[in-house]
Every structure is written in C-alpha cells, then in structure tokens.
C-alpha cells in the first residue's frame, strides 16, 4: 500500500510540475504585459515601463519562472503582482471560502444523493425510481447559473428568506455564514445530485443482482442486513470515485457561482490572476487546485482499495 501511495504521489508531483510549466507558457501568450494590465490602456508608456521594472516583470521569462518555482517548493508563493500582497494572503482566505462552500454542498448532496440513488434502486421501475432518476438528471442538466438565478429570485427576492450574496459580513457566526452559503450550496446540490444518485442507483442494482446477494438472501439473512452488509458496501465503490472527482470542481471550478453570488473564492482568484496576467497568483492558484484534484483522487483510490478486498490483496501481493 505504501509503495502504491508513494508511486501515486511521485506521479502527482511530476504532473504538477508539468502543469506549472504549461500555465507559465500559456500565460505568456496572453496579450499585453503586467504593467499595462494594471495601469490600463490609457496609461503613459513610461509609467507602464516603470511599473514593469518595479515588479520585475521586465526580466527574462526564465528568471521569473526560476524565482517563482524556487520559492514555491520552499512554501513561498511569492507576491501577487496586481494585489501587491503575498500570494498566500490572496489565496488563503479564498481557499477557506471555497472549502466552506464545497463542504456545505458535500454535506448536503452526498448523503441525499446516495440515499436517493439506493432508494431508487430498491424501488426500481416504480414511480419513486422514476421521480428520483428523471428529477436528478433534469436538475443536473440545468446549468448552475440558471439554478442560481431561479433560487435568488424565489428565496432571496420574492420570499426574502435568504441573502442574495454569499459573502457573510466579517466575523459572522456559524449560523449566519450557513445562511449566506445555503443558496450557492443548493445550486451545487442540484447540479451534483443527478451524477451521484445515478451512480449509487446503478451500483445498487448491480449488487442486488449479484450472486453473493442472492446467497445472502437464501441464507435467510434479514433484508436490512443484506442491504447494509452486502449490497451497500459493494454498490458504493463507483460512487466514491464520482464523488472524489467532484471535489476539485467544487474547490476550483465555481467561477460562475462565485461571480453571481459575489463570493470571494478560489475561482475568483484564478480569474483575477488571468485578467491581470498576475503570474505568481495565477500559477499558485492553478497548482493549488491541481493539488486538491490529486489529493482527492488519491484519497478516493485509497478508500476504494480499503473497501475492495480484491484491490487490497492485489496491492499486497
């Protein structure tokens, strides 16, 4: 197992390094330089040149990349060119915000979708199954910004129950933050419910059809025990993989939701980095989102192998 993890981590590090080189090169293709992006098109060229010199963005690309990667591996992400603050200061709060939103969405959607999927499987072909399956797919098919607009119109503007934006006032308590995050989290719940419940449903149907389930039933075990011990344990394996792949999306892929709900998350930081051609910010944000993806998939693999004795034994051999 340790060897398996070490191999995955090593591959992950190589992927991240390649990602950093790729982003750096792509960022150079973007038109305009950093000084021009910060001061705008109408600024005097002399001022732009002076700012580029002050920021060090008039140095060679290799020197800039070398400085940045050298710092990054020692935990120093450098200074944001546009915000003139350490990148940690820009990304830190954004990452915390994104994690809060992702966690809330996860806490709601994972149990809900698994229970929904399993229930649909147990009631396969009946009205309850149809409602859950068709409803889930329909909800997923509607883009998140449409859900956002609908939910804001209903719950914030018409019923006046929840705030229109997601950013709670500074130093808000747990329940106030929860209130602010509920609408964006619900958008994500709608988007993810269909994926997860469908996987849970398919896995459960497959397990219910399997020989070991039939044997357990014939053995005379109570139905509840059969489902808990034999069906769920096997049926949830593909679901875990789906859930894990959504973690990266939930942390780094929510620019649209963050914009609509005016939420200062990591997607927004990524967008700012790109807009301003702020290379240290852009690069660090991309790598952090990359790390989240890698860690999530690694955890999913580990969990998968722990739940699946065949994989575990295979790794041991």
């Amino acid at each position, binding site marked *: 197992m340790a060897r398996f993890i070490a191999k995955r981590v090593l591959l992950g590090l190589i992927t991240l390094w390649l990602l950093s080189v790729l982003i750096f090169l792509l960022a150079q293709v*973007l*038109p*305009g*330089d950093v*000084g*021009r*992006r*910060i*001061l*705008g*098109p*109408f*600024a*005097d*060229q*002399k*001022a*732009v040149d*002076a*700012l580029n010199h*002050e920021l060090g963005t008039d140095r060679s690309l290799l020197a800039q990349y070398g400085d940045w990667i050298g710092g990054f591996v020692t935990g120093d992400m450098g200074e944001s060119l*546009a*915000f*003139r*603050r350490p990148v940690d*200061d*820009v990304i830190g*709060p*954004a990452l915390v915000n994104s994690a809060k939103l992702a966690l809330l969405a996860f806490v709601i959607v994972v149990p809900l979708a698994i229970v929904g999927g399993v229930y649909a499987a147990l009631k396969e072909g009946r009205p309850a199954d149809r409602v859950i399956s068709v409803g889930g797919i329909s909800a997923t098919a509607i883009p998140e910004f449409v859900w956002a607009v609908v939910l*804001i119109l209903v719950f*914030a*503007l018409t019923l006046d129950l929840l*705030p*229109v*934006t997601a*950013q709670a*006032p*500074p130093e808000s308590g747990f329940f106030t933050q929860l209130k602010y995050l509920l609408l964006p989290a619900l958008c994500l719940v709608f988007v993810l419910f269909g994926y997860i419940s469908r996987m849970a449903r398919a896995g459960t149907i497959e397990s219910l059809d399997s020989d070991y389930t039939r044997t357990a039933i014939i053995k005379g075990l109570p139905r509840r025990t059969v489902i808990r011990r034999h069906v769920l344990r096997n049926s949830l394996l593909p679901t875990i993989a789906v859930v894990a792949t959504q973690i990266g999306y939930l942390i780094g892929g929510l620019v649209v939701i*963050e*914009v*609509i*709900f*005016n939420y*200062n998350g990591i997607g*927004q930081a990524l967008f*700012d980095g790109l*807009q*301003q*051609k702020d290379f240290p910010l852009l690069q660090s944000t991309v790598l952090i989102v990359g790390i989240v993806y890698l860690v999530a998939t690694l955890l999913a693999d580990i969990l998968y192998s722990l739940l699946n004795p065949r994989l575990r034994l295979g790794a041991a051999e």
Partner: protein
Amino acid sequence: MDPIRQRVDAIRARSTGLENHLIDEYRAGSISRREFVARATVVGMSIPLAGFLASACGVDREDISKVDPKQTEPPQPGGTIRTGIGAPAGALDPVTANNEGALAVLGQSGEYLTWSDSQLKLRPRLAESWKPNSDGSVWTFKIRQGVKFHDGQSMSAEDVVATIDRLADPDGSSNALSVFAGVLSKGKSKAVDPSTVEFTLDAPNGNFPYLLSSDNYNAIILPKTYEGDWEKTFIGTGPWKLDDYEPEVSANYVKNPDYWDKTRQPVPDRHEVKFYEQEPALVLAMLGNEVDIVSHYSVSGGKALLTSEDVRTTEYSSSVHRQLHMRTDQEPFKDKRVRQAVALLVNRENLVNGLLDTKSDFGNDSPFAPAYRSTDKSVKQRRRDVEQARQLLADAGKDDGFQVQIDGWNGFEMPDYAQLVQDDVRPAGITIKLNITDAASYYGDATFGNSRWLDSNMGITEYGHRGVPNVLLGAPLKSDGTWNSAHFKNKRYDQLVAEYTAALDLGVQRRTARQIQELLLDETPIIFSYFYFWLAGARPEVSGYETTAMGHIDASQAGRVA
C-alpha cells in the same frame, strides 16, 4: 384577455402595413413617444388614436424613461449607510489606481484640492481658492490650514507638492502621467509658503484646476512621506477613517473626529462600502436590500433597478462615451466623404432610444458632450440621412460600397453597438465584419503597431467621464496623440486645441469649441454617437448622498429620512 390589449389588437388588425411598422418601431424603442405621435399623424392616424397607442404600447418604455423624484427630506443622523461599488481591481494605491472601484474607495478617506461635482462645477476642498496668472501658464492655489491626516500629522503645501510631483514623475508608475503630459512636469510645483502652492505649466491651460480635482482620481493628497503602502492605512484627510478592510470584500469606515470641515461632518456613524466583482451581483444586492446606495450602474445591466419601486435613480448627463474610429490614413476612409457618409448612416435615434433606453445625450462627432459648459449646442446635430450618404459615397467613387471590419471588445453595450452600426450602413452597400474579442486582445500593448485599438481600420473604444474635454481633445485626436486610433493629423485642429486649452474665458472656450466641433464634423475621424447618462441608485428612504460621473460616491451627508 386584457381589454387594452384587445383594443390594440383590433386597431392593429385594421391598420395599414405602414402604421403597423410604426407601432413596431415604437414598441422596439426605436422612436420616442413624441416622434411616434408626430409620425403617426403624418401617416393618417388621429391624435387621440396615436395618444392611446403611445400609452398602451409604450408602458415599459415610459417607466424607464421617466426620472425618479429625488428624496429631498433631510437625513437623520446616526446609523450605517451601505454602498455597493464595483470591486477594485488589484492593489489599492492612489498612484497606480485606474478603475472605478479603486477611485470610489480612494475618495472615502482621501480628498482632492477641488471637488468636481455632478454638474461639472468645481468646489473648494483642500484648496481654499485658486487663480491663474494673466495667460494661464502659472496657477496659484491657496491650501487650507488646520487640516490633519488621519495619523495626526498636519497637511501642508509641501504635502501637496510631493503628491503632485509623484504623479507627474516620468520615472514613476503614475497612472496620472497621461493627464499631466504636456501640462505639468515634475519639479514645476512649488510650495511658496506653508499655505501656497504655485504650479508652472508646460503651456497655458485654462482648465488646469480640473486636473487637480476629483476628476483626476489619482490626485488625493497624501503625506510627503508616503511610500506606497496605502492599503495598510487608507491615509487621507477625508471625513471617513478606515475601521476595517477585507480585500476583495469590503471597506468599512467610521467618522473622522478631526475632520476639518465643520459644515460637512459625517451624518451617519458608519459607512460600509461593499465590493461587487460584476454588475449583476451589484444589481441583485440592491434589489435584495443588501446595500442602500449603488454608486453606478449601466442601462444595459441595470434595467431591473430602473423599473424597481424600491430604488430611486439619479441620472445626469456625463461625457462617458464610445468612440468609433476610422483610419484616416487607410482605405476606404482616406477620403473624408466616406467617413462623413458612414457617420450619416449611423442611426443615432435608434441608439439613444433603443440601445440606451433614452438614458443618453446625442453625440455630434466631437468630444464636446452636451454636458460640457463650453460646448456650443447651436452646432447642427448630425442625423441619419441615407440619401446624402449615398451621394457622398458616389462622389468619392465608392457607390458600389465596400467591406470593412470593426474591431472591438466584449464589454458594456459595445457588441450591440457594433451590430447596430453593421445594420445601419448596409443600405449604402457597406458590409461590416465584426471582430469582437476580450479587452486584453483589443488593447494589446496599447502602443502603435502592437494594438488592435490603435492599428485597426475601424474600431470601438470606451472612454470614461472627464469634467473638461481637454484630455479627449488631445490624446485621441491630436497629430501626436498617443491614443490617436484614427491616425488623424490636422494642423488646424492641433492649433485650435492649443487655443482652446489656453483659453481662460468661457466665452473664448465656447467660440473655439464651435470651430473644433465644425472641423471635426467636416473631417469625421471619429464617430461620437452618444454620451451616457450617469445612473446611480438608492433606496427611497435614503437622502443626502452625492455621486459623480467619475464614479465617486460621497455618503458623508447621507442617511435615512424620518
């Protein structure tokens, strides 16, 4: 069915094709109510019938085009006022700031020598008075005494000199360098005594005080010891002192107990300024009662605010506009008759009444917006005239039309503007291809040879508000102008602009303005179709706030009425 709708349908069923077309145009916002009634009577409708149709078919438009009554009740002291603004992009630094969000924040704790109000009048702030020498080449400002920075230091003439020198420094990263170019050089500001500063200009300039006003948003007066760490302190002399700041989220202020102006002590106890990355979120925040004031919104993005009963909109003429340039040194626009023809084909009525929902003034192909006091409004307004345009094209040997490309970027209403122009010129056989990109691709390096903005044959560029037209007359149109995307070179024009710039007297400015307006109408290097109305909104119970078309918001005198 609604009885009014039934009656409209019955009238339309028996109307001629021409009458129905007119009704459709009115419903689409292409013509105003007054024009509809006038033209309806020409095509044979009775005045009562036209009046009924105008009311029945134009309800929404009338709602939008009406002006909300201003809340005039005095505000109650105390409480918190919450203002929503566009999020500042990047670090907050008075020297480099270049966006509306940043300048709105600068103006909370910072102050200028003079304040350029929504009517473009200058009011004294940190300068008590100012006067020029006989030819406007030296300006002397009397600096207010007894003013303290938020850290307790007294503000003096030396601080003013250091601030302006910093902005005029060609070796620094000042965003205001383009404003001072050719006007004021570094080292030409002098503290004559602790309360007097003398500015010796590069050339006479009658509007110089505007360049030191809130119009030049970088020019908040900072201590001479300032080292570029403004975001840590928000230092200034203004009525608000920073309480807490969360980057990308909000800046909250409390009263400055040492504020010098006893007549303008803050009315509310606290001012919360919230940042919104995009306009839709700002509009929703206003509708959802998350803010009391929204410092600015656009017609295209803020229709919900214009029609909401919970929002009172203030609107005033500004000089915000779009420039549609034509390269005067390239075919097919080398011949001015071709440029004139394109300008005559643009349907400004459609743009103002439809695209901008009546919330703009007509442009007359020069930077002289109706909002400017020096603009000569008696110069004949250019209107759509397809026949004259065709004749001009024929005279120029282009009666078969031609094909061109409009470059632009995907912001504000500009892509729609480009499409409307594309439709407008079609009757004369002109085919326009649109090349709409993102802002960065359009502006590129913003230097000649490296920018679609400055190199394209035809392009649309957005320009913000200026309290006086000096900058707009210079950089985009003068022969050596750094923003001269039309590549317009005209010695007579350069001479007239120099005369206008130097003129101290409004009468002289207006006479010169007329000559410039007429010259530009004749040459037409750039089409100026409209000048935006500046729109700001507040909850009906809020009074006393002031916004300017520059993007400033002064909430120090704001509050809720009893």
